[in-house]
């Protein structure tokens, strides 16, 4: 995701919100240029930040960051034409107040949503800019995402000043055996992974630090398993650099892999992701800057991310593309 400390300023987030709303108002026509530049041709509501892509039997979903309460939702029949949905908890929740400045709306960041069995779930972060006082919340929907019966399950991981991590950027991962893990973290030592209960989806074990980059920062971890030529690896996708600075953002998408979900992860050159490693899959282009906030379908076939449009005041825009896997078992660049 996200609103990273301490390199970023508050300004781009406010800018992001205003521009995103503007894009929504303008609709598909105004986004034709952005869509043309995207790996997939997209239309409709394309303003987004930290898009979490998920596909159910008949519907594609994008869950996204908002800074005006709620978990943002888009949906599509084909993955190309996107409609903005009603945010989950658009009126906010009482406990979020503990993690935002007094009198301010909650900023709900980088949701990680999907279905676990018959249950829809969304992890998300509530925090404020540059703060380590953060919480990862969980909401579930009996009957799945489309049922829309979202109920608050409260905070599942919190962080406070003095902790060695920041409780943001959650994403559910699972082992090939079906055991669930939660990936999370940002500045303050990077990305962690922690087992969660297969019943409650709440933490059930100790965290392991799996990626760190003291020079650039690393966040928005997303782990999937993928098999190539009969060999299964766990892949950690992440975002490095500065998000949220519009066209000045330096975000880039990187990847590493491991034979174990808890690491150690190394990049294609063999550099450990705990030592700043990460093979770049996408970085700034001439127009669209700072690709990051990525997520993938569970089978690794499709990736979604955002990038900032330098020709449109740095507005963050949705991108989606197929992921091509090389015979060496590494994903190829996505743009």
């Amino acid at each position, binding site marked *: 995701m996200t609103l990273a400390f301490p390199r970023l300023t508050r300004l781009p987030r406010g800018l992001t919100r205003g521009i995103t709303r503007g894009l929504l108002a303008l609709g598909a026509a105004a986004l034709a240029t952005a869509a043309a530049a995207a790996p997939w041709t997209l239309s409709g509501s394309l303003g987004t930040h930290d898009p979490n892509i998920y596909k159910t039997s008949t519907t594609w979903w994008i869950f996204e960051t908002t800074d005006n309460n709620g978990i943002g939702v888009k949906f599509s029949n084909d993955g190309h034409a996107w409609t903005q949905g009603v945010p989950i908890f658009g009126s906010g*929740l009482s406990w979020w107040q503990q993690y*935002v400045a*007094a009198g301010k709306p909650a900023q709900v960041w980088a949701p990680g949503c999907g279905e676990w069995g018959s*249950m829809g779930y969304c992890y998300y972060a509530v925090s404020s800019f540059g703060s380590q006082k953060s919480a990862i919340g969980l909401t579930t929907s009996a009957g799945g995402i489309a049922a829309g019966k*979202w109920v608050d399950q*409260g905070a599942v991981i919190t962080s*406070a000043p003095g902790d060695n991590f920041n409780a943001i950027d959650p994403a559910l991962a699972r082992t090939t055996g*079906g055991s669930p893990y939660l990936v999370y973290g940002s500045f303050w030592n990077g990305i962690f992974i922690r087992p969660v209960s*297969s019943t409650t989806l709440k*933490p059930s074990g100790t965290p392991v630090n799996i990626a760190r980059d003291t020079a650039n920062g690393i966040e928005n971890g997303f782990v999937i398993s993928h098999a190539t030529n009969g060999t299964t690896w766990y892949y950690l996708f992440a975002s490095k650099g500065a998000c949220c600075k519009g066209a000045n953002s330096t975000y880039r998408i990187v990847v590493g892999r491991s034979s174990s979900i808890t690491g150690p992860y190394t990049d294609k050159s063999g550099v450990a992701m705990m030592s700043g490693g990460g093979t770049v899959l996408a970085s700034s282009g001439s127009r669209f800057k700072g690709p990051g906030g990525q997520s993938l379908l569970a089978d690794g076939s499709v990736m979604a991310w955002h990038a900032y449009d330098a020709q449109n005041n740095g507005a963050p825009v949705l991108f989606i593309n197929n992921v091509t896997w090389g015979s060496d078992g590494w994903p190829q660049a996505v743009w």
Partner: protein
Amino acid sequence: MSPARVAVLAAVMGALTGFAAGWLAGPGREPVTLAEAGAARAAFQALPGPETGATGASAAPAPPAARLALAGGGPVDLGALLRAPLSELRSSLLTALRHRSEGGWLYARALARQCSALEMIAMREQLMPATFQPVVDMNQPGVQRAQAIRDQLSAGCSQLQPDELREAMNVPPGAVDPLIAVMDRPARPGSAEARERLTAILARPDPLMLAELGPGLLAREGESLVFDGKRIDGDERLLLEGAAMLLPCSLGLVCDGRDVIVWGPCLTDGVCEASSREEAVMNSLQAGEHPERRAAVLAWVERLRAAVVAPDVGRFLRPPG
């Protein structure tokens, strides 16, 4: 104790806390037999009128927080709603929601979370192949007890409409519930606001609220907890966290075998040895093998309880500087 051991215990405590945070407030429970809880009960017995559980089971003396006056003059006993038969869960929940301005929303949410927990258990059973399901011996008393709870909860929750479940569980900002309002009040650690929040919590030490706060009642300083002006680290911190989970039991929250901390792990993981929250917490702290650890936890419970009952806000605050 090795760091690895501490980490494992921390994970277990975290898991128990997860159960507690999500699924508090079991049905018709009897008080846990904490050795040091007598003084707390004596303190509350001086207050008017014994709490009347709907089941008629022996109930913990009601703390002042759970006994309130209705606007119309009649008493509402929020604690009794947690002890009512599970088959009447919907009625209990709706009653609690009608009294949200008196703290009822917190209680309604706790009731609703039990139904949500059941949905999660059913989801897991649907998801997991049989080989991953826990092997349970139905002859075990703990298993039978947990299954009975599940059956009763299923009956009660099936009457609840989805909108009612959502209304109880999704508490928006500015909620009128005073207990939730004080729990959710923003307060920077060590600030005047933090002191005011703590003062408000101790002014009405509702057992359910204290259960939801758990170790969060205690101030943190880095990796340490703070109590009585001292930093509590490492293994001692784990014992203190365990005590914080038992504190509400000493203040009237019933924590016997019907406590979700007891039956939850039984249904999901086949861990059915404990018959009370006290046993569950003590087992997680290896206190069964080490009586001195059990004594240490109970001593912490008594210190916490004394500070709450006093109430002595200063004992919970970080020392200046």
